[in-house]
């Protein structure tokens, strides 16, 4: 699969060069890339799920290493791995079921297999999630290759040679097909997450409220616009979000939609917070403990909100849900950008005069991209699945990810 490799390399390079930035874009691209990786993966007869998982892991590792700051990439890789596991489980379940049936009546086994694909993969996945929780937990605890292999033998057990072959062919195509279907759904989810989040806007934004936000987040924008479309009238304070000043862009967009908007400096947030009914911000990533990695300055807003008991709401698509804890060593929480956003190089060039101050620069300009907001400062998360408490995040994460995949690293065996 040379063409897939080229695609992967291209994407890795783009991530490395920061040509793809933002969690939405990178999540979408990652999902699309993994879909093509899976569709190009040649299926072996045995241990198909294991092979798929290995392939995705190999690619995923490269992607994650390419830009560790972009946590959405890792999230999507893990979600795809989870999808493979779930699909494998559900197909195994159907196979077992089918076997059970065929043991009862040998004649109409063909009909059974015709019926099965009619069920949507999602329904199967949901079924697996609800009914097969116990086996899935078992696999979570077990070793990956082992867990992937162990369900395999029972399917071929006690069957005639020819039948098992045709069965396997069918199953292999089916597994891949199902996985691709599920990934398509995932991509669709990523695309529509803004709408799903903003559908809930009316429940949270009330008449004549004052909302404060910082910087620009597409989700926040859609959320506010959705409330406006439902004829809610409210005011928005936009903190400009120095040094990138995305708040200015947001203010323009909001005014375009006819929302009463006030732009304030970041430093004025504390002065204004007492007049605010609710703070709504976007996020770069939501960690497993309910902490938020968000554009720089938001922690200050959260602290101000806590001081005045103003609800602090974070809106984010579920692709921003990260199964890692912020204390994990591989989670790089911040990205330090160029100081040129803050100060003009020309003006400060004499302060960076290494020749004259004994060789060590006296000036150090720090320009971090993100803040970490601890979970206790967050009142509510609004994701595409609804509103959640920070303490509920770990549970949500367990739905989306399997524990085996938290560390996406090839085993030393490979």
């Amino acid at each position: 699969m040379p063409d897939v490799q080229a695609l992967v390399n291209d994407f890795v390079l783009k991530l490395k060069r920061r040509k793809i930035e933002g969690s939405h874009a990178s999540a979408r691209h990652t999902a699309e890339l993994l879909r093509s990786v899976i569709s190009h993966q040649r299926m072996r007869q045995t241990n198909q799920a294991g092979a798929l998982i290995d392939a995705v892991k190999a690619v995923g590792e490269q992607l994650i290493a390419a830009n560790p700051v972009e946590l959405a990439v890792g999230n999507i890789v893990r979600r795809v791995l989870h999808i493979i596991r779930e699909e494998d489980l559900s197909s195994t379940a159907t196979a077992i079921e089918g076997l059970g049936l065929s043991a009862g009546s040998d004649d109409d086994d063909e009909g059974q297999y015709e019926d099965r694909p009619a069920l949507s993969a999602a329904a199967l996945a949901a079924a697996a999630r609800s009914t097969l929780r116990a086996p899935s937990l078992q696999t979570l605890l077990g070793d990956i290759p082992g867990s992937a292999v162990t369900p395999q033998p029972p399917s071929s057990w006690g069957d005639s040679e020819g039948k098992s072959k045709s069965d396997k062919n069918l199953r292999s195509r089916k597994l891949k097909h199902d996985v691709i279907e599920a990934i398509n759904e995932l991509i669709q989810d990523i695309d529509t997450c803004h709408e799903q989040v903003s559908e809930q806007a009316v429940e949270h934004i009330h008449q004549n409220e004052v909302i404060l936000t910082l910087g620009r987040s597409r989700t926040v924008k859609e959320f506010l616009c959705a409330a406006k479309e439902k004829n809610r009238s409210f005011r928005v304070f936009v903190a400009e979000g120095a040094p990138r000043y995305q708040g200015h862009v947001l203010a323009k967009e909001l005014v375009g939609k006819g929302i009463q908007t006030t732009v304030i400096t970041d430093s004025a947030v504390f002065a204004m917070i007492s007049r605010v009914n609710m703070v709504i911000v976007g996020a770069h990533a939501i960690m497993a403990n309910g902490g938020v990695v968000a554009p720089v300055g938001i922690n200050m807003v959260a602290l101000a909100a806590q001081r005045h008991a103003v609800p602090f709401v974070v809106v984010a698509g579920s692709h921003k849900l990260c199964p890692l804890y912020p204390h994990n060593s591989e989670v790089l929480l911040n990205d330090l950008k160029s100081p040129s956003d803050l100060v003009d190089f020309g003006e400060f060039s004499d302060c960076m005069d290494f020749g004259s101050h004994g060789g060590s620069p006296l000036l150090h300009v720090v320009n971090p991209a993100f803040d970490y907001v601890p979970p206790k400062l967050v009142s509510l998360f609004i994701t595409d699945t609804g509103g959640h408490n920070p303490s509920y995040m770990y549970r949500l994460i367990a739905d989306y990810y399997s524990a085996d995949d938290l560390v996406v690293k090839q085993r030393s065996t490979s």
Partner: protein
Amino acid sequence: MAQKKGLRSSSSDDPEELARVPLQAVLLADSFATKFRPITLERPKVLLPLVNAPMIDYTLAWLESVGVEEAFVLCCAHSQQVKDYLNKSQWMKQQGTFAVQPIESRDSISAGDALRAIYNFGVIRGDFVLVSGDTVSNMSLKEALQEHKERRKKDPLAVMTMVIKQSKPSSLTHQTRLGNDEILMAIDPDTKELLYYEDKTDQSQRFITLDKMLLANTPTLHLHNDKQDCYIDICSPEVLSLFTDNFDYQHLRRHFVKGLLVDDLMGYKIFTHEIHSSYAARIDNFRSYDTISKDIIQRWAYPMVPDVQYFGSCSQMKLDRLGIYKAPEVNQSRTAQIRAFSLVGNGTTIGDHSEISNSVIGQGCTIGRNVSIQGSYIWDNVIIEDDCKLSHALVCDGVHLRAGVVLEPGVILSFKVEVGQKIVIPAYSKVSLLPQPSKQDSDEELEYADANSGVVESPSITSIVNTRNVDPVPDSSDAEHSDTSEVGISGVGYIWLTSEGGHEEEWRHSIAPIPAEKLMEFFLSAHADLEVSNQDVNSLPASGELQVDSESTGFDDGEDYRDSADFEKEVEATFHRALAGVNQDNVILEINSLRLSYNMSHADCAGSLFYSIMRSALAFPHSCNRELLLNTGKELGRWKDLLKHYLKTIDEEIEVLLKFEEMCLETAKEFAPLFSAILNHLYEKDILSEDAILSWAEEKEGADESDKIFVKQSEQFLKWLREASEDEDE
């Protein structure tokens, strides 16, 4: 011929430009200078690691990021190494929109030659970006390209756009940051056309010479000394043919740019594009290597910083607090300390109690115990044994420092040099395994000369070393036998003689911080600059300081006596420069600007100028009054035109007379007996009109007796004048 070719190709380009021409770039993988010797004897400059990635990677990555589709890497010195590197690197493998193609031209010994070689290959089809392989930048070229294209459509003679960047406007910063000379540019603020470029401003000479046509042709012109040349140019294909037609063009700036600016026959124009927030700089010498490394560590070149892995080839870095970059597999002792703004590469081991600050350490190095490394650059696979001290040194691949070695600031150790125990390498020394080639006076030569040609035989080197007394430990006999014993027992390497400029120049381009006394010198000269400019025409600061009361007209001496005295002095200084041979037009210009800055009238100028002329006449040696008169006559004749320039009305002429009178009374009594004779002379030379003289006499009628000395003295002359005028009246 040349012109035709250029024009034709440009006109044929125009329809092509409507169809899309891929953006091309020419990357010169050779600096055609010797500033990085002795390192560049073994490895081309573009492959030297800058914060653990070869310089050429920075340039190529930048070219790719700005949307260049074809890059031609012109390899001259060490062309095989450059080609090998490129073949191995990701740049050649990568499919897609960015193609790198090496072009070999071994016999090119200057940028001019290289561009002529490119021309002969005939690969350049449209506008191209011309950079050197040691450029670090993160600027976006879109705007500059757009500007360039639009200008080209309007004016096919706009062949080049130079990228410039603002930096602090003091000569100090230029020198201390990048080790360059101050660059002076004259730019038209409206069209951004470059009108004048000078990168070798002479420090001793504190003025520049501009062509007066320049001032005549452009309504406004800004003279900048606060711009940094980024050495990134967008060129039209004509540039190549220009190089081919002018065989004497060698250096890009010194010959080509200046050549085009001076040459008004062909009328080619160069424009500038200023960048603000983005970073661009070129590594020209060791000082800029140091500065740019630190800029990268401080993330000015983002995203080309170590932890972003922009080039893919280098290992993953992690950025800790205070600008400390660490590779994942660093073996660091618990007691070792890595201080701010340092980078440690993969697989490096650091022993107990060692300290590293402000330094870059490559991959696979072994650092022993109690080592102190400060502001140094240590490349890959270096072994540093216990108790070594390195400050502001550059240590290349495979160097072995035995226990207790001390490297003083500015030391350069080239590849695989070994230094024996407890040796102190003196400041600014360069040590290499290769012996130093014989002296070559030009700095435009190749980076690489054949190792066999022009090598000073080893005996002379030993003698050099002996005289420099490098080796405090008496050599053991077996060490004496080997040629390369200069760096101590069991050491390997030659110590190079300091280069052409001698010790004087070494500190300027070295990694080491500038010595305090040199800095003092800078400050002093900078202040001297200010003072000179006070007296000078460019009285920008002067006008601010000295203009006490701008309202006064300068006639009442009592109040602003000091002002007018200063003014007089300034005019005299200007006049002295005129004596030294400055063009008369310039003198007028200078005096005019002085007049404005001191808020003086024309009459004051005339008076002061006259005073100066008389002083100069007085300065000539004279034995008797007669000789003095002769001299005065001569001087007045010489400067008549100048003086006439300010004598537009009778008032000014009277002022001159009053001045003269005052002189005779006070400052230059020698003239007193000659008053009437000189007055006569002034009249004859048409400097003073009879009306002026007569009205002066009238004014004096009612004055004190003492004031009338000179009126009386010239009574005869006045009488004659009156008669003459009456005659005329009749």
